[in-house]
């Protein structure tokens, strides 16, 4: 096989330009060890995360304890932040929060650093299961921050029969027609179809994707629409009765209306993970590792779960969680083994174009 240069456009263009500039260090992935040992309190940290995903006071507490100066900036979607990192040639951030299935693209282009587990002793707080996630076995490049699954979120006071299967979107009872929404972005868009048809959620098989596309186009006739942003609100308002939803988001609906329930269909579902990664170009890798370790403290993991009603893969943190909270939001009580029964989302590689085309086909149909 011919060795191809797999560099981002920018990395190469930078090289071309670097011919007349100074050497723009292609930051090797070695954490901790390499680089002059800058004392922690002289390091700075630029972190990008979603809004309202960092517990209040966490950054300040970290700054106070370590003396590291932290800049917390925001991104909107995984796609946006991955695109930004790629366009900037991997520079600009020290630590980024990104979903596990977007990790592969960052690793492949050499943008993330391998982690030095010795600098993160609190990794011991994770559930053992959180070390065997399909997108990054052994957590070599990433540390899971939250995890969860996707299922059906519905109004138990309006829906007569408890939904148990993804096929409800394809063959709904009459009263649900026009009252359901599905998630509109991949991989979740194809999830009900792939699961109903018995295919993998990480499939790269064109025939399976095509079959799922057809299934979803047929289901589309039954839907109120595809909705990624307001489905929980529409559920509370009664404009939608049954929606495909991420577990945490269903909890936002439950918080407003206790009649709302969450169920993982019998065909199984996905296991999504949001992770923390350190960028290869970072010059503050020790500080980044220290931050990850700080987040992994039980009390901080607990604060995350209480903030966003998501499960955290941190056993010590989950054990501290108020039982009343789990009673209110039952899916917070899902065990790691239950979660691991679901299929961990990975990057489908080049087949992602098939997925994107499938989405376009479904929307355009």
């Amino acid at each position: 096989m011919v060795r191809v240069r797999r560099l981002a456009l920018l990395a190469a263009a930078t090289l071309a330009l670097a011919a007349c500039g100074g050497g723009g260090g292609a930051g090797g992935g070695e954490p901790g060890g390499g680089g002059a040992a800058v004392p922690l309190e002289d390091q700075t940290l630029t972190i990008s995360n979603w809004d309202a995903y960092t517990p209040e006071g966490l950054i300040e507490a970290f700054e106070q304890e370590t003396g590291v100066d932290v800049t917390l900036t925001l991104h909107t979607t995984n796609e946006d932040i991955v695109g930004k990192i790629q366009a900037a040639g991997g520079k600009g951030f020290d630590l980024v929060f990104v979903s596990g299935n977007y990790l592969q693209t960052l690793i492949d282009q050499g943008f993330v650093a391998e982690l030095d587990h010795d600098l993160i002793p609190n990794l011991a707080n994770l559930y053992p299961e959180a070390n065997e996630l399909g997108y990054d076995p052994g957590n070599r490049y990433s540390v899971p921050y939250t995890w969860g699954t996707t299922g059906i979120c519905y109004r138990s006071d309006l829906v007569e029969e408890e939904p148990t299967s993804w096929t409800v979107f394809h063959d709904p009872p009459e009263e649900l027609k026009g009252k359901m929404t599905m998630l509109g972005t991949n991989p979740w868009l194809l999830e009900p179809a792939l699961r109903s048809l018995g295919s993998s959620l990480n499939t790269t098989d064109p025939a399976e994707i095509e079959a799922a596309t057809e299934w979803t186009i047929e289901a589309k006739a039954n839907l109120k629409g595809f909705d990624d942003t307001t489905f929980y609100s529409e559920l509370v308002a009664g404009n939608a009765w049954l929606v495909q939803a991420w577990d945490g988001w269903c909890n936002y609906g439950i918080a407003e209306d206790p009649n709302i329930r969450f169920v993982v269909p019998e065909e199984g579902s996905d296991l999504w993970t949001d992770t923390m990664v350190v960028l290869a170009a970072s010059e503050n890798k020790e500080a980044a590792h220290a931050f990850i370790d700080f987040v992994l403290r039980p009390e901080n993991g607990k604060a995350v779960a209480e903030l966003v009603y998501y499960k955290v893969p941190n056993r010590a943190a989950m054990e501290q969680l108020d039982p009343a909270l789990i009673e209110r939001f039952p899916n917070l009580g899902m065990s790691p083994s239950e979660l691991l029964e679901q299929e961990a989302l990975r990057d489908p590689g080049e087949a992602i174009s098939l997925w994107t085309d499938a989405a376009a086909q479904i929307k355009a149909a």
Partner: protein
Amino acid sequence: MRLGRKGARRGRATGTGWPSRALFLGPGLLAWTLLFAAPVGLILVSSFLSRGTFGGIEYRFTLDNFARALDPLYVRVLWSSIRIAALTTGVALLVGYPAAYFIATRPARWRLPLLVLVVLPFWTNLLIRTYAWIVLLNREGLVNRALVGLGLTERPIALLGTRVAIVLGLLYAYLPLMILPLFSAIERLGVAPRQAAADLGASPAGAFLRVTLPLTLPGVMAGCVFVFVPTLGNFIVPDLLGGGKAIMVGNLIQSQFFQARDWPFGAALSISVLAVTVVLLVVQARVLTRERRLAARAA
């Protein structure tokens, strides 16, 4: 007089001849070259390269990306987007022209406030405004209540998730971009030309069609381009108001860059759309030039 003007055009009046030409065009061209041509060129070059498995770019020349852009799926999406954008633009012109005309013919001190009132809603984020439309268009929403109340329909109808909702949302998103250039063109006109036409015995409609409209054509064209182009690229409105049931070409391009991480193909798709748009723009510019020449001759 005519000769005198010609002579003046060569040298004296502002904006002609070096160095004032450099002064007028310089900053714009500089910004254009450095902040548009160079960066965008960088990306567009990648349309001739291949994608890496996980989203990088491989330096292998190919024309595949353009061949792929001709896939019936993409052509169909482009065509339906053009239709939606054209419809939106047409409605915006019909709605916007009278509004701009009225504002432009008010006493001077009213014009700016009336104009600001047009753009003021747009200082609220597009996403939030679109959420508001969801509330309005819901089955139990105000629009349905009004329709039922007026006896136009018996039962609330599904508005969300329809093409009507998409066009409505797009119209809402870009109407000021129609009204402002129209205002700019109409205000210049004053009442004199139409008055003259009326004095010469033209009916109001005739005066409008033969005098006002041609004279404000640059504003009409600018407004149409302003609405048409961003409409093609919008994906928030189709996603939220169309219930994700329709896809615009902007959505397609965005998903190639971000979801599929296929920058080369995203770039090829962008070039194709740009090419179509440029053809439309050149045609409109030509029409405009001819009309102006005709108008100038008539004057």
